[in-house]
């Protein structure tokens, strides 16, 4: 037997067994926890944070109406669908989905910012 020629022993099998089991466990572990991109939307009105919504755990859409701005949040981004301000720039901005970007309704003093909870590597966005 090749194993005997190489001089393999029972202990080798034990080491392999333990490591392979550990490896399998590590690979299977994430499947138990829900995937989380860590993207959150922070709604600020009149300079104060009204709410922070974790987008990645959203199923479907959620709507918030703040100071007359209708904010629609979903797992892939945020957009303002309606507002009672004269220029409606906030609605025209469309959907944002990247951390660091934001939609603002200046007349209503509402700002919605997207933030990445993990690995905040972007310090600012120039636009």
């Amino acid at each position, binding site marked *: 037997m090749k194993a005997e020629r190489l001089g393999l022993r029972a202990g080798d099998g034990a080491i392999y067994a333990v490591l392979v089991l550990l490896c399998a466990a590590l690979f299977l572990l994430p499947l138990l926890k829900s995937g989380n991109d860590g993207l959150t939307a*922070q709604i*600020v009105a009149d*300079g104060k944070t009204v709410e922070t919504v974790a987008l990645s755990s959203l199923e479907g859409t959620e709507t918030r109406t703040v100071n007359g701005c209708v904010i629609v949040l979903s797992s892939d981004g945020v957009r303002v669908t309606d507002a009672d301000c*004269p*220029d*409606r*720039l906030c609605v025209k901005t*469309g*959907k*944002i*989905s*990247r951390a*660091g*970007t*934001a939609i*603002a309704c*200046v007349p209503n*003093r509402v*700002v919605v*910012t997207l933030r990445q909870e993990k690995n905040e*590597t*972007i*310090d*600012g*966005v*120039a*636009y």
Partner: protein
Amino acid sequence: MKRKRVLAFCAAALLLAAAVAAGVLWQKRTRVYPLTEKTSIAMDTIVGFKLYGAPTGAEAEAALGVVTSLENTISRYKEGSDVFVLNETGRVESALLPSILAQCEPLEEQSGGMFDLTVGALSTLWGFSEENAAVPAQSDIDRVKDSVDYTALQISGNTVMIGKNQQLDLGSVGKGLACDMVKQYLTSAGVKGGVVSVGGSICAFGKKNDAGDAWTVAIKHPREENHFLGYIRLKEGFLSTSGDYEQYFEQNGERYCHLLDATTGYPAASGLCSVTVVCDNGMLSDALSTVCFLLGEENSKPVLESYSAAAVFVTTDGEISTFGDLDFTKDES
């Protein structure tokens, strides 16, 4: 025999401990200082603060106050502000305005008058922020264009006088100027470092950890919402972007953006859709981004050089190029 074993074990343990200690010390160098964040609205735009190592935590609020009080000097629409009074009456006494105008004059000259702070009347004529913006009549453009002339400004001491029918508009330099003043305040308040955004004009100053790691600023993509144009890494500086995607309208398939060429009376036609300028002064970075957008890539280079500034240009065809000493990485996603 046993002693040697023990000795060896101790040596190994000691070395391991030393390695871990080194690792922990290293990690302390890279751990960021306590972070204070604040987002608010001022100067009709989003103002964001990301401050590291702020002594009391109230600095962001106070810095916001610096921005709102600046409006009392430079806001075109705020009643009683220096610019408002100047535009209404033709004359104003101002502590800050003369130096702003003096700093911008060389740029107005270098741009051959394309960049002109008295462009206010022309901006109003085009009406970009209005619901039903449309291309104005040529006769109106010609008429208003003639009133745009920075050389007609008269400054003596703290007195500024503007010509009849002229309107001063500091919209193209105001955000950068706010960044300058905020940085000055924050550093004097003892904040170790941070990034401030005033309507997209960025100020990055100080350090976020003992190691003094560089800041990363993303540039918004001029056409695509779902990813950035790229990232600039810098230890210290100011960034401003001028683009045709912020305020514009489309008529007959053509895009008309809010960056007006004072010599033609029409929006800039330089083939660019975005310029980001990096510089060691906020107001200059803001003004330069407008100037470069108007001048176009080639003609911008000598101007940028004279201010030791760097820039990222994006043409309407989507070509990205940089100029000057800059750490810029394109977003590959």
